[in-house]
């Protein structure tokens, strides 16, 4: 128990030195550390949003909207498929959770089924291979067919959509000029956005708040929206409300001429005549070609610019727009024009994103928290060290050394693995120091007890360490269980607490058992061989 081989001593000393070296950058300012020689580690522990300040937004996609969009796509695909195969149908539309087709002739049922089955896509799964299809086509009766998305299909759609949404969110936040946003998927349909240093989230929320689906539509040549509502909506057309004038409606062709996907650039600008804020944009090649052809054929007629199903404006085409660039006006302010330009440049979101959780900490509170946490940490640790030395004398000094090393190691490991330090994390760190004493206390109380029972110094110390070891293992393992569950439960700050607690459990066993034991062993060696009994200063 008290014999250490040379290589073990070297390993322990090296571990301690490595701990100090890796923890060191944290007590200096970032600028100071940057000037250090290259061989020294410069990484500092990353601070949680509650300490450095920043915004945390949890966004949720609209599953119902995703499903509706998909059903509409299935409906359009089915229509095209049946037309191409020249199969007549009397009805085709979204019904409940599927798309229903009513055929003209019952004898074409099987042919139609075969045609529609061509729409089915297998779902690839990297781990299990192909695991199913995205939709199911069934024949309800002789003339009725039903296309229904499968559960796996919906999951895959959602997962693809959230991947696309994350990309768009990242582009939008980057366009705002904020640095280092952390954007990750959470669960199937949620996105966690963390922006360090951002305390006023108003603009962020505005920029993420809209889908920003931009489309250009043909306006019905004769009928206005109002007339269509009173009579009937012609086939292929749809009524869109105006974004500017309340209650005013337009009758537009449902299939757009050009999509926002075809934009390569959008910038806020000012109209040269009216000096109003506008957005100037440029199409890519295919967009420019489509838009050019459309404007050439429709000179003198209006077309509508639609954003998120609302008509921004419906200008009259004065001449063909062949260069692929144009501008959008729509009663913008400088701010809204700027935001919309960012949104258009970054592309549309697959669905609207709802903020289900927001936690923002301003920089002043973060700085106050660091200060308060450090102060409490220094006071708490100092008090613990004094208590230990007072209670156990020279051996208490050994314990104090290993306690300090424990704190250093926790910080070093957190720095190395890139764990985040939060305010509860600082509390966890301080608490780890307080509770790490327990291991030393267990050992020392045991040594005292064995000495009282009349054992010699060496025997008492040896029994003290080996007996206490079992108890230490038991008690640390149970705390570990609690910390693991906290990690699973927690969001940001609480996870930080669980992380420091977990690291602290491992390092405290190392420092309290191994390091203290080494110090005690070295002490014993220096006192042995003087021909008189060793008195344990405890």
């Amino acid at each position, binding site marked *: 128990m008290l014999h250490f081989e040379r290589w073990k001593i070297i390993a322990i000393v090296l571990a301690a030195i490595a701990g100090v070296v890796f923890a060191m950058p944290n007590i200096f300012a970032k600028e100071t550390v940057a000037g250090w020689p290259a061989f020294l580690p410069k990484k500092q522990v990353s601070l949680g949003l*509650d300490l450095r300040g920043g915004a945390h937004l949890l966004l*949720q996609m609209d599953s119902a909207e995703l499903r509706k969009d998909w059903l509409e796509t299935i409906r359009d695909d089915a229509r095209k498929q049946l037309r191409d195969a020249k199969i007549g149908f009397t009805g085709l539309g979204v019904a409940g959770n599927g798309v229903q087709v009513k055929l003209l002739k019952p004898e074409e049922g099987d042919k139609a089924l075969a045609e529609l089955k061509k729409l089915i896509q297998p779902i690839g799964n990297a781990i299990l291979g192909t695991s199913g299809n995205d939709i199911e086509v069934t024949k309800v009766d002789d003339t009725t067919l039903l296309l229904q998305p499968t559960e796996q299909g919906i999951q895959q759609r959602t997962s693809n959509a959230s991947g696309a949404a994350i990309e768009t969110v990242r582009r939008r936040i980057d366009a705002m000029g904020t640095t280092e946003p952390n954007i990750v998927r959470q669960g199937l349909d949620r996105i966690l956005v963390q922006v360090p240093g951002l305390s006023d989230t108003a603009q962020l*929320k505005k920029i993420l708040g809209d889908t920003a689906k931009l489309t250009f539509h043909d306006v019905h040549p004769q009928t206005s929206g109002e007339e269509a509502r009173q009579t009937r909506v012609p086939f292929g057309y749809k009524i869109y409300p105006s974004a500017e004038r309340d209650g005013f409606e337009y009758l537009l062709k449902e299939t757009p001429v050009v999509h926002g996907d075809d934009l390569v650039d959008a910038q806020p600008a000012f109209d040269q005549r009216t000096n109003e804020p506008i957005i100037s944009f440029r199409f890519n090649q295919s967009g420019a070609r489509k838009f050019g052809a459309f404007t050439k054929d429709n000179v003198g007629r209006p077309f509508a610019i639609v954003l998120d199903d609302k008509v921004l404006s419906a200008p009259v085409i004065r001449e063909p727009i062949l260069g692929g660039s144009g501008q959008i006006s729509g009663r913008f302010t400088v701010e809204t024009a700027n935001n919309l330009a960012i949104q258009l440049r970054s592309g549309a979101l697959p669905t609207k994103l*709802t*903020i*289900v959780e*927001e*936690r*923002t*900490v*301003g920089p002043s*509170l973060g700085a106050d*928290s660091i200060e308060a*946490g450090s*102060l*409490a940490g220094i*006071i*708490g*640790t100092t*008090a*613990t060290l004094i208590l230990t030395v*007072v*209670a156990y*004398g*020279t051996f*208490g000094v050994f314990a104090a050394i290993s306690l300090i090393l424990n704190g250093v190691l926790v910080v070093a490991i957190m720095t190395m693995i890139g764990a985040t330090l939060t*305010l*509860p994390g600082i*509390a966890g760190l*301080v*608490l780890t*120091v307080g*509770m790490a*004493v*327990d291991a030393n*206390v*267990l050992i020392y*109380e045991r040594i*005292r*007890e064995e000495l*009282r029972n009349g054992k010699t110094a060496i025997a008492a110390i040896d029994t003290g360490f*080996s007996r206490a*070891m*079992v*108890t230490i293992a*038991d*008690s640390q393992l*149970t*705390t570990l*269980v*609690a*910390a693991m*569950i906290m990690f699973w*439960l*927690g969001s940001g700050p609480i996870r930080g607490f*669980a992380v420091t607690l977990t690291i602290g459990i491992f390092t405290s066993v190392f420092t309290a058992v191994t390091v203290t034991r080494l110090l005690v062993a070295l*002490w014993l060696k*220096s006192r042995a061989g003087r021909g008189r009994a060793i008195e344990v*200063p*405890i």
Partner: protein
Amino acid sequence: MNLVPDFKGFDFFPHGTRLPFMRFKGLCFGLSIVFMVASLLLVFTKGLNFGVDFKGGSLIEVQSKSGPVDLARIRSALGDLGLGDMQIQTFGQPSDVLIRVEQQPGGEAAQQEALRKVIGALGEGFTQRRVEVVGPVVSGELRMTGTIAVLVSILAIIVYVWFRFEWQFALGTVVALTHDVLVTVGVFSLFSLEFDLSIVAALLTILGYSVNDTVVVSDRIRENLRKYKKMDLTELLDLSINETLSRTILTGATTIVVLLALYFFGGEVIRNFTFAMLFGVLIGTYSSIFIAAPLLGYLGVKRDWSGAETKPRPAASRA
């Protein structure tokens, strides 16, 4: 050579005490049952003052740019917004205000709308220190995971203690742990302290600390059961508690000192969290001495450990 001059520690705790803890077990059980029942009653009648994590709604901390704030003016400015029940108080210092807005009807977007209104009504004279908005979906989920976390922790610890000791020890531990959690929650209800996710983290830490304490005492009981095969169980339990008492008190003292430092200097944000922990450490220490160990006296425990003694425990053989 003497690198360090030796000096003895101050062994302030009297050793060889024979405090008759077991004699008070009736009284302690009685008191603890009363406290547990009272806590349950409080939780079910008065309820808990849930924070935004569990109740939903918004929490906004702002700092006045011009020194101490006039709460009455803020109250009247925000009162007209029609956002239902609102709590407005200073927080930590006279220039800081904490505003809690209850969950608004109308789903996720309504919470954001309420936040916009409050910030608009406060005007330019304030900087935002902290904003927390939790919608109805997330608050429901957090309530669920919080409850599951506490229950799963207790279950995991029972399994562990059962595996390492006898079932009587596991039962004693679970009663002690449930007691600690219940009474801590009861105190939060009694004083209407805000109960949020961080308090659940504190509860889990308390569980860890309390079980740590219980395990230390149980370890000593098991050791003494092997050593004194004929000793009366009550006497043996008393002896074990007395033998570990100096450790219990010293570890408890250092932990409490650290927590006091956090409570007084660690800032307003984690004050409730450290309070829960402080209370929990006290109650956890109490429960391992006065509940877990005496319960063994009632339950009885296997006295013949001769079989187990010949097989060294794996952990012990490594040490």
